[in-house]
């Protein structure tokens, strides 16, 4: 019993979020009936939220450590452009190489480029002690600038069919991209809960001085985190490419703020240390559900922004109050004990 209470105390923001989620579902059921949740719609949502989810995971990792990655979308665009160049034979003759090789090369390029971009963030943050916001802000400019420079703003499209399958195909009605997202999610969850790195991330996020004194190599960990976050951008970029069959700098710019919101909504404390990845996943679903609902309601995108912003504030408010309450509770509990002892 007490154990459960404790767990709730620690994960209450999760509980809140989940209630939230159910609330949205109910509202939508009420207004659209079950049509909202037929396979049709669900799979379409699955298609849409996959890339956002992966990006959000990357962002969440950085926030868990107490940082933030504003360059994540720019990074995705840059790496997808380079991959696109490969896929469209800008670098070597794809006819000669054959589809499989080309696609493999493209994927490798994406992974390498995105990870390197991430690593660059990590290096600047850990070795030069530049604050994450500022670092990633500048690298964002840098990455998108580079992408713009390379392409002159043009989109590069027209990839091999077999590659597009990844974006449009689905297994047993479940989109491949979504499956990918889930796999990534599971891997990350395991990594965070079970591996050394995962634990180190939490320690640093909670108190980076103490982690240093406990012999954790903060700087190495941070570099890894941002590299992973870069990798997430890479994976997302592959999804985007395969779905849109084109790449262009500026694609998905509006994701940037959205993923930050998702992370906070998902209960990742912006100051680091606290938060669960499945919260982020749930938050992504919330966002997607509302996104769809808004489209059907024909809301203007700005009223959407309004509602999202409000949601964010409300969630933060609830979390704040909950923290305060539990703190006071602890003190009261303690005083009670003291009085007993006094007797």
């Amino acid at each position, binding site marked *: 019993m*007490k*154990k459960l209470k*404790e767990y709730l105390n*620690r994960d209450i923001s999760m509980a809140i979020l989940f209630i939230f989620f159910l609330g949205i579902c109910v509202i939508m059921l009420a207004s659209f009936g079950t049509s909202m949740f037929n396979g049709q719609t669900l799979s379409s949502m699955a298609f849409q939220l996959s890339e956002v989810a992966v990006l959000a995971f990357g962002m969440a990792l950085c926030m868990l450590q107490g940082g933030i990655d504003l360059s994540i979308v720019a990074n995705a665009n840059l790496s997808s452009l380079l991959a696109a160049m490969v896929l469209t034979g800008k670098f070597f003759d794809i006819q000669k190489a054959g589809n499989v090789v080309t696609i493999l090369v493209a994927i490798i390029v994406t992974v390498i480029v995105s990870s390197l971009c991430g690593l660059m963030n990590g290096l600047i943050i850990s070795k030069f002690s530049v604050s994450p916001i500022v670092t990633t802000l500048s690298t964002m400019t840098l990455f998108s600038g580079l992408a713009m420079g390379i392409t002159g703003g043009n989109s590069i499209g027209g990839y091999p069919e077999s590659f597009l399958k990844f974006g449009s195909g689905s297994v047993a009605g479940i989109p491949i991209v979504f499956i990918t997202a889930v796999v990534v999610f599971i891997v990350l969850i395991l990594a965070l809960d*079970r*591996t*050394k*790195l*995962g*634990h*180190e991330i*939490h*320690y640093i996020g*909670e*108190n980076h*001085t*103490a*982690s*240093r*004194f*406990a*012999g*954790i*190599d903060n700087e190495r960990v941070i570099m890894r985190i941002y590299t992973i976050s870069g990798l997430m951008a890479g994976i997302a970029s592959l999804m985007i490419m395969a779905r849109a069959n084109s790449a262009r700098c500026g694609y998905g710019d509006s994701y940037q703020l959205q993923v930050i919101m998702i992370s906070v909504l998902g209960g990742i404390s912006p100051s680091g*240390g*606290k938060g669960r990845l499945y919260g982020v996943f749930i938050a992504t679903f919330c966002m997607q559900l509302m996104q769809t609902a808004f489209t059907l309601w024909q809301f203007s995108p700005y009223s959407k922004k309004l509602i999202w912003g409000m949601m964010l504030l409300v969630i933060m408010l609830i979390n704040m109050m909950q923290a305060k309450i539990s*703190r006071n509770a*602890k*003190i009261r509990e*303690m*005083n009670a004990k*003291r009085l007993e002892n006094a007797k």
Partner: protein
Amino acid sequence: MINAKNIVEAEHICKSYVGVQALNDVSITIKEGEIKCLAGENGCGKSTFVKIIAGVEECTSGTIRINGKDCTKHSAKQAIDEGIQVIFQDLSLFQEMSVADNIAINKLIKEGKPLTNKKEIRKIAEDALKLIGVDIPLDASIQELSIANRQLIAICRALALDAKLLFMDEPTTALTKNEVDSLLDIVMGLKKRNIAVVFISHKLDEVMRIADSITVIRDGQKIGDFAAADMDAQKLAFYMTGREVAYQQYERKQEDHTKLLEVKNLSKAGNYKNVSLDVRKGDILGLTGLLGAGRTELALSIFGLNKPDSGEICMEGKPVKISCPQDAIDLGIGLVPEERAIQGLFLQKSINENVAAAILKRLTGFLGNIDQNKSRKLAKDAIEQFRIKVYNEETLINTLSGGNQQKALIARWAASHPKLFILDTPTVGIDIGSKSEIYEYIQKFAEAGIGVIIISDEVEEIVSNCNRVVVMFDGEVVKEYSEEEMQAPDIREQINALVESGKKAGKEAQS
């Protein structure tokens, strides 16, 4: 003086923090023009009391009257307006701002003139600095100054405007003898001008020199008010600790005398100068001296957090290069840091996680996966072994009392099976019960053949736990007491004298 009116009347003050009962039903009145000293062990609640009267912290219950007005829920500004000035223990200076601004700011706020002007500010600062007769560049920013100088700035700031009541929370910790003297003279001067002073210091001689009345606090409870006249160091110590402090002295029984750690004239500019010392298996080496002596820096250097400029460190005879804590841990060195809350604990995490923090490597399996059960078992054992009072190993650490928190921290390092164990002021803010337990554990470690270094300001602590002692001043080793010397009956007085007397005595001791 008898019918002097009360400036502050605090009644039944209670203050609880998460996990700690900092103050428990404390009533204190402060009269005009009196010098009251608050005495008590580390963590007994002195600073907390100061903060509450200064309107910085709100008391959980109780009433406060300042100059007759009821100020139970008053703000810092109100306190200042009522003529209360504070030298906080953590100094509360503004790192990026200039010395002049830092000194003048309180006066500016007090006067509340919306516009400021540079000349005026510099004037205020200069006058204040003259008052205690030091000169520090007015345009330097605080972060360029040494601890000692920062402390002087904080003092100047409080003196800059003539308060009715001045709180001094351990203002002398980093100061040299003559700086202290001039400060105490100033305090006496204030008294003549009928200004009340509340003086907090762990150096009993200072207390004795100036106090009119002494209030003793223990574990957040008031033991009583005493006239300084009928009070002496022994008595005071007794009241503070609640018993005749006479821990049985530790003596080393180990046979093999090979040196575990050997530091050969290690130097680091601004911290310490060619320090040499050694630790054998089973040694408990005491490292004492004034705050600012560079002991923490030395410890940090051994732990790989403060790269020395020259000299070498040997573990078990082999010269080693320790460039980061991980290296140190691999070599079997553990460090319980000075600032528990900041450098030691993960307050939002469970005991389990806090204990596991330093030994993740050992808990990782071949897939890089952490063995949860193992770590949980370790935590359980730690709770048993160190008698940490908690519900279970998943309890959040910030719900524990200071003492138990510290035990958990020691448990963390015990779990890493260190060969050399460094504890920097391990008993600050810890109740007497836990304190003696901790001593017990430390001595157990030593008997088990671990080399231990204790950094501490409390001579009692040093004498009763250490078989050897090194005294540092201003970054230099001024005296090393061998095991034989430690047997001397008047060893406490010797060390006290040496530490208090500062440099000059130190030099004599060397020659």
